[in-house]
């Protein structure tokens, strides 16, 4: 049984070991959603996520002999960083199991913290089984990412701080993967104010806790932008805690989460990873539920790959009609392309790429398609340019997605 005193103890233990991250008001997001939004910035935490809280509390509880023997964990992401970071500081040898297809940058980042990385298993779940076996064989302690009272108490300190800084929330929204952060959040919130609503948030690719609430068997598969919470099986220790304290678990789509990451950049000027943006996605997907209420969003982490972030930003431009790709049919004769360029330029569009389709396409030899990428002001501007082209006799089709 974990209670608020465990979280207080964890806080004392963590003092000076991790950051007390800022909590900030967000007038921009409040204006956008109609709720009174505050953010707890665990993306600013050491290693870029809340995970260092739980991992430190767990490792601080090890005996001298256990410290000497070393620890084992399985994770390709934030938990690996959390364990690796503190193990190095505490002088504990750490071995991290990662799936064999883990990107090199993630391996390197964990190795840079001083941990030994073993690439084994197809999935994180498989790596975890192998890691637990190895821990048993080698007499090392397995550091569980969420099903551990120390870890839950450690993660609970994030909510404790949030409520100290902003005591009068109506609701707090917290991402759920295995449920460690959310369990700690529930315990801290209940002790603070029994009426405070805690809303769990999951990605619909991995809605395991949502299913546990509904009594359905867990399923989860595929790629998700919220890889930090892509957990197939809900925790044994965490599930009952969440069921006791939480009314429901909200589930959001990949598109909702992607948009939330983009809005965090556009409106709040903060970099947030997919799983950290899930609480905002919940508000954006159901603004009525939160309208006029004071809502805290647990921004759990900020570790997003630069390429992924870049494509989220560019896809955002396309969705907003600020970048568009048109396929235009033209008679293949001199000057046709110049005429098209003239029409687009005359309407204020800026051509950034042109691809002439003549050789390889199934079009009559005297016709050609040209694909043109243009920078535009918004969706209306795109439509205006398309109409102008049509009215001059150039058949035009929009190839990119636009809201």
């Amino acid at each position: 049984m974990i209670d608020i005193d465990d979280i207080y103890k964890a806080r004392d233990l963590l003092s000076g070991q991790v950051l007390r991250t800022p909590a900030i008001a967000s007038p921009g997001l409040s204006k956008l959603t109609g709720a009174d939004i505050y953010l707890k910035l665990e993306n600013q935490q050491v290693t870029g996520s809340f995970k260092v809280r739980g991992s430190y509390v767990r490792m601080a509880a090890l005996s001298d002999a256990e410290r000497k023997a070393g620890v084992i964990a399985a994770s390709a992401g934030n938990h690996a960083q959390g364990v690796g970071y503190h193990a190095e500081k505490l002088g504990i040898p750490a071995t991290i199991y990662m799936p064999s297809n883990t990107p090199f940058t993630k391996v390197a980042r964990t190795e840079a913290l001083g941990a030994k990385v073993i690439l084994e298993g197809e999935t994180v779940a498989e790596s975890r089984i192998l890691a637990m076996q190895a821990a048993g064989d080698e007499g090392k302690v397995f550091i569980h990412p969420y099903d551990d009272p120390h870890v839950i108490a450690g993660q609970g300190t994030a909510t404790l701080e949030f409520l100290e800084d902003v005591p009068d929330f109506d609701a707090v929204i917290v991402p759920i993967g295995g449920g460690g952060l959310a369990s700690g959040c529930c315990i801290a919130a209940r002790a603070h104010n029994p009426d405070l609503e805690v809303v769990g948030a999951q990605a619909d690719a991995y809605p395991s806790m949502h299913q546990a609430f509904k009594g359905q068997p867990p399923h989860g598969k595929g790629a998700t932008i919220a890889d930090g919470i892509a957990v197939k099986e809900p925790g044994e220790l965490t599930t009952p805690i969440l069921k006791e304290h939480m009314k429901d678990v909200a589930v959001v789509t990949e598109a909702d989460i992607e948009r939330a990451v983009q809005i965090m950049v556009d409106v709040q000027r903060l970099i947030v990873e997919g799983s950290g943006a899930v609480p905002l996605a919940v508000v954006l997907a159901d603004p009525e539920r939160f309208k006029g209420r004071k809502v805290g969003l647990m921004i759990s982490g900020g570790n997003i790959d630069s390429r992924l972030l870049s494509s989220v930003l560019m896809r955002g431009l396309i969705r907003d009609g600020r970048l568009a790709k048109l396929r235009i049919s033209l008679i293949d004769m001199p000057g046709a392309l110049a005429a098209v360029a003239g029409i687009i330029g005359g309407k204020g569009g800026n051509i950034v790429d042109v691809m002439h389709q003549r050789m390889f396409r199934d079009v009559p030899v005297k016709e050609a398609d040209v694909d043109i990428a243009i920078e535009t002001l918004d969706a209306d501007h795109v439509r205006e340019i398309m109409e102008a082209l049509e009215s001059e006799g150039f058949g035009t089709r929009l190839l990119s997605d636009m809201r």
Partner: protein
Amino acid sequence: MDSLNSSEPPVFADVLDAQRQLKGWARRTPLLENTILNEKLGFRLVVKPECLQRTGSFKFRGAFNKISRIPEDMRANGVVAFSSGNHAQGVAASATLMGMKSTIIMPKDAPKAKIENTRALGGTVVLFDRLTESREEIGERLQKEQGAILVKPYDEPLIIAGQGTIGLEIAEQSAEMDMKPDVVMVPAGGGGLVSGTALAISGTLACPVYSAEPATYDDHKRSLEAGSRQPVPDGAVSICDALLAPIPGELTFSLNSRLLAGGLSVSDDEALMAMKTAMLSLKIVVEPGGAVALASALTQKIDLQGKTVVVVCSGGNADPEMLARALSMPS
């Protein structure tokens, strides 16, 4: 400061006064750092992220310090400002909060997002054609016709004092963190932010303060070296759109020439790489001009080993295209 339109350089007490004026209105932005990055760099890098300020840049501080002091009986006629960017938003937001009208004169070809943000903050945007119209004439006409009060972007004591509240916060927050900064680095365009910050630091931490600029717009650096205001050469270009003032301000330079330890400059690529580090390691969005002090620190334009460096990241209003460009830079 007695007068709303004083032309004397501000003093330390004016910055303290500005802090009282801004209390409850401007955000006290946090100090951020990444301990793992610090270990890699060999010095302690602490960031003051004004991208998290109201309107996404420090400009709100100065604008509010001026506009909120306009006496009740002069408020009816509103304020007027010229800007294509961050100052526009700071002025519009401040005026709206004070229940005043604001007219912002922006070039017709200013980014639509900035025009719309300014409107969304309550500003009336008047567009002018850079080629055929003079913004000064439009401004003068509006001042005459409407009796509107002009809010300059940097060469005004109240503006400088308002921006200086950043320096006071750095000193306070350093004390709270038990930290003793050795160096402070601040981006410079017209020089309002760096002069105000240096004024605040001179009365608190008393550590060296450097200005940071794009290499092609290094007018502060050259002016500090020459001991007099030097203009930017004709035809200079930079991606740092927030820092393209043609020459240091008169008032700001009178402070900077006395208070700054020196001027630093970085290339556009160095600014882009700093933006990337800001996004990936500090988890904040910084615009090119906002990143030049960070870039100066990351590329160690002066010896920083073992030191504690505070850099001001002055704004975050960058387009997604620019952010994507920064993300594609080599690490």
